[in-house]
């Protein structure tokens, strides 16, 4: 069973639009939530991460929103660009990096 559920599986947005990817989890032991970006043929790379004591974290065009009571978190990015076209993975970590669980991924396409 996927411990972290991610949606949508794929997303197409126009250049300049807003992209939103959602994740949900069940295990209340998860207490650190990173997002990874992966380009075709490359390994994932950390994009942004949030702790559950913070409801929102913004870095440049990227914002993570976190709802602890609903056990949901989401990635928003403003002004989407064709260079943002990639697969995005949310993840959740319980105690240490040995216990990181990933969502299934969202393939984002930004049309010019």
């Amino acid at each position, binding site marked *: 069973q*996927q411990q*972290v559920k*991610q949606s949508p*599986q794929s997303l197409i947005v126009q250049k300049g639009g807003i992209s939103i990817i959602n994740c949900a989890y069940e295990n209340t032991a998860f*207490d*650190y939530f*990173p997002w990874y970006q992966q380009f075709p*043929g*490359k*390994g*994932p*790379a*950390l994009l942004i*991460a949030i702790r559950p004591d913070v409801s929102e974290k913004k870095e440049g065009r990227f914002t993570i929103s976190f709802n602890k009571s609903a056990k949901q978190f989401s990635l928003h990015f403003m002004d989407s660009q064709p260079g943002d076209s990639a697969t995005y*993975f949310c993840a959740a*970590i*319980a*105690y*240490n*990096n*040995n*216990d*990181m*669980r*990933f*969502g*299934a*991924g969202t393939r984002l396409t930004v049309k010019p």
Partner: protein
Amino acid sequence: IAGITQAPTSQILAAGRRMTLRCTQDMRHNAMYWYRQDLGLGLRLIHYSNTAGTTGKGEVPDGYSVSRANTDDFPLTLASAVPSQTSVYFCASSQTSGRTDTQYFGPGTRLTVL
């Protein structure tokens, strides 16, 4: 600085054969990890090593073994490959195993078992 290198880039293997995927990092990170990536499942942890000389089992360890003789190298061995081990394999490392330490991923090895 190369970061993490993996070899081979891709491999086609007959079922039943033994295969070792290589991973080397030059960042002097203590912790290293092996993941497999399958469509619709994201990445799943196979084995990890928090420091040289120690290893542990991840979410999907069956059919795989690892060793960590030194800080830099973390090979993954499939003793007798099966078609369900067809996947893309990623090695990663982090300074420590602490959950806020960023994991850095290698470029991956695409393995096909026929």
